[in-house]
């Protein structure tokens, strides 16, 4: 069967209480909170996190493709999927594609994954990751909604799977809003919000109604429906019109973490699968210039539960989120402030030559004395001095701080300082230097012996290029 083998998610560390926005602009209060990416995060780095979560316990070399869905591409010419696949340490003879420009690109990518697996006998597993960091225009209602996060679904063909994908149905209907013009628009624009809402309802209801009809399903037979929404009222309206039972239409996420964009339907699906029933019938739907509906069935309740237990998903991330204190922190992290940013040099050749070290965290193990070391630019062993006698070894993405400094002199500038520079002894060997991100009061909280996890982040944009590398963070519980 073709279905879902695994899923994972990522939510950034910052949680913005909506009352901070209300207070800032003297707006009516909208309740709840929303997730906000840190300044060193973008759709690509969050996709890596969600991918790592999804692939917990699964060998990345067994994955045959990666589809990346986002409306907030880091490049408009240059594939993100292939870099994400590289960082996740997948093979290079795989298929990749970026699905962009529409909020339904996540669900569309799942449909295309199903098609690819059906069409090609060598393709059995495709990882679909949806990730978004949409920029809301300050002092607009979008600001209450747009939030940041990523979610991943591993589509696979296997004899036994937690969930099967039974059918999908799509419509493509051009709508007149919202939009963002290439190059000229920093923020999303729209003509008429009420019209947007009507297009939304029409599209989402049409695909869900049709998929139920195609599969002879009555509303009362459906256990969960996870469909995109950016406003709780229109969500409720759709559920009512579709005659869905109490608790069937997944809601609550907007209140807690906001509108995750392309990642929203996946996130809603993951929260729907917290308490699975055998044979439960689940519909996943994405909307945006049309809509997709995907009909799934729980095949093995135990396997679904196991997935929830072994992955951070949404809830484990939510446990370690911390409220932002003020609007300034929010606009600084969202890069809504225009200012010069610290850059360094960039080098295409170094990034290519040291791909295993930089992106995939491979170290070296000395064949003579066994010492594990990093990075690969060093050619003789630190301990026994043997020349070029190394085997590649995958390093663990966690360890303990051996020593550190809190650096106020960041490239001669003073942004976001002090930066903790941490010397880390990784679990199972290797010593590295990493900057620490997302640490509150570093003077009090960074300590020798502290446990840390590595997280893939944007370092700087020297040479007008995105330079990514690993930083460390206080543990958020990644397994």
């Amino acid at each position: 069967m073709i279905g879902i083998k695994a899923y994972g998610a990522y939510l950034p560390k910052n949680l913005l209480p909506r009352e901070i926005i209300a207070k800032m602009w003297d707006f009516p209060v909208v309740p709840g909170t929303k997730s906000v990416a840190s300044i060193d995060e973008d759709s690509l780095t969050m996709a890596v996190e969600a991918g790592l979560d999804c692939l917990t316990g699964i060998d990345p070399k067994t994955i045959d493709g990666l589809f990346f869905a986002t409306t907030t591409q880091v490049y408009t010419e240059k594939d993100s999927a292939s870099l994400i696949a590289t960082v996740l340490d997948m093979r290079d003879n795989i298929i990749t594609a970026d699905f962009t420009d529409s909020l339904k690109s996540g669900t569309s990518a799942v449909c295309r994954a199903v098609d690819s697996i059906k069409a090609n006998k060598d393709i059995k597993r495709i990882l679909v990751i949806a990730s978004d960091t949409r920029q809301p225009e300050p002092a607009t209602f979008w600001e209450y909604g747009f939030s940041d996060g990523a979610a991943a679904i591993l589509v696979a063909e296997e004899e036994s799977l937690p969930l099967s994908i039974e059918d999908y149905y799509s419509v493509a209907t051009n709508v007149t809003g919202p939009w963002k013009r290439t190059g000229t628009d920093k923020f999303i624009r729209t003509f008429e919000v009420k019209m947007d809402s009507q297009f939304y309802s029409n599209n989402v209801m049409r695909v869900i109604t049709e998929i139920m009809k195609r599969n002879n399903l009555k509303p009362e037979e459906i256990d969960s429906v996870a469909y995109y929404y950016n406003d709780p009222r229109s969500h409720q309206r759709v559920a009512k019109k579709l005659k869905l039972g109490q608790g069937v239409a997944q809601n609550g996420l907007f209140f807690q973490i906001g509108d995750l964009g392309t990642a929203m339907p996946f996130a809603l699906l993951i929260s729907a699968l917290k308490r699975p029933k055998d044979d439960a019938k689940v519909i996943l739907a994405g909307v945006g210039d049309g809509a997709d509906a995907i009909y799934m069935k729980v095949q093995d309740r135990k396997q679904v539960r196991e997935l929830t237990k072994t992955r951070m998903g949404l809830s484990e991330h939510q446990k370690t989120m911390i409220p932002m204190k003020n609007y300034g922190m929010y606009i600084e992290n969202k890069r809504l402030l225009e200012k010069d940013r610290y850059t360094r040099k960039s080098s295409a050749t170094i990034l290519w030559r040291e791909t295993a070290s930089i992106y995939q965290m491979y170290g070296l193990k000395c064949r003579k004395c066994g010492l594990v070391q990093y990075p690969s630019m060093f050619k003789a062993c630190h301990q026994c001095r043997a020349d070029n006698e190394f085997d590649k070894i995958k390093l663990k993405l966690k360890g303990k701080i051996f020593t550190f400094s809190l650096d106020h002199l960041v490239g001669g500038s003073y942004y976001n300082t002090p930066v903790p520079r941490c010397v880390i002894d990784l679990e199972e060997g290797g010593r590295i230097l990493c900057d620490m991100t997302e640490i509150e009061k570093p003077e009090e909280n960074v300590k020798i012996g502290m446990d840390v996890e590595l997280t893939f982040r944007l370092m700087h944009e020297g040479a007008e290029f995105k330079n990514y590398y690993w930083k460390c963070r206080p543990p958020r519980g990644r397994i």
Partner: protein
Amino acid sequence: MVRHGIANKVAIIGCEMTKYGERFDKDQYGLLSEAALGACKDAGIPKDDIDAAWVGVFYYFTGLSGTTVEDALRLNGKPITRCENYCASGMDAFRNACFGVASGAYDIGLACGVEKLMDEGGSGLPGFKIFGHPVYPMPSAPAMFSMAATRSFHVWGWTKEDLARVAVKNHENGFYHPKAHFRTKIGIEDVVKAPMIADPLGRFDCCAMSDGAAALIITRPELAESYVHSKDYVIVKANEISVFTMAPWYWPGYNFISFPATVKASEMAYKEAGITNPRTQVDLAEVHDCFTITELLNCQDLKFCEMGKAAEELKNGTFNYDGEIAVNPSGGLKSFGHPIGSTGCRMLVELTKQLQGRAEGRQVKDAKIGLAHNLGGAYSVCSVSILGKKD
């Protein structure tokens, strides 16, 4: 390994340093001219007697190649080499000049160093955006050394006050030195309460950005007898350099409480100079106090005291200019600042004048043996030179 060393093969017959500080009035050529011509004058020779020159320069913007010396002095096509070895660049220039003279290839050598930092602005060392790796973290110099402070606090229980005593002592010494950049005495409170640069190192734990140059004229001892300092020329007893990794944070098991380059360079230098008990045999030392923590660890690595005891010994006055072993009687980098390529030569000029009994700052009594120590990069490169009075 056969080591013949440099002991007793080279004599210093003239030396000079510029005033250190924010020398907005002079460029690198002006500074170098002031120091080198001063050294020639001290040696009583015209510049044309120089057969070859070596110059310590760290930054590309101070100057590439030997042309920095040529454009300061016009040596008319003579051999000149630029030496770059991080903060040990100046002392490595001296080391190479010694080889040139000791080999007999040249009779008179000029060893000098210069750095022009203040033309680049003053917030931390420049260039970090340009060199290094594109993505691996690049800690600032204070951050590199504060990793050793963090670890020393953890292992030996040292405190900010222990570090502060280094700054207080060195600024006390520097107050008396006319060539020092800073000539103000400070108290422990000033150091402890100063703004942080890289925790736990605050502003007074760090040496400053500064401009300066220093130069020495060297020859072989038998020739030295015919120059003006025939009665009090200074003999090179040892000159060693040790190089370890540029990135010690990738070195598994490295302890961060001792600098292997210093340990190795000093072991070689002591052997070369026949020193078996540094604490009693060395009268004064100009050591690399780029940061307060560095001086404490240097005193241990150079075996002036036991491991873990430097803070206590400093408190007890062991390292005062009139203590058991005078450490940085000039005021050190803390008082002079650190124009990188020049610092090693400045230390050697200071030792020479101390051994000749004509120190410009605080004179160490009966100084017979002096040691100079340069430590650069991420404690990667260490130069140790030992100078002695003419017998």
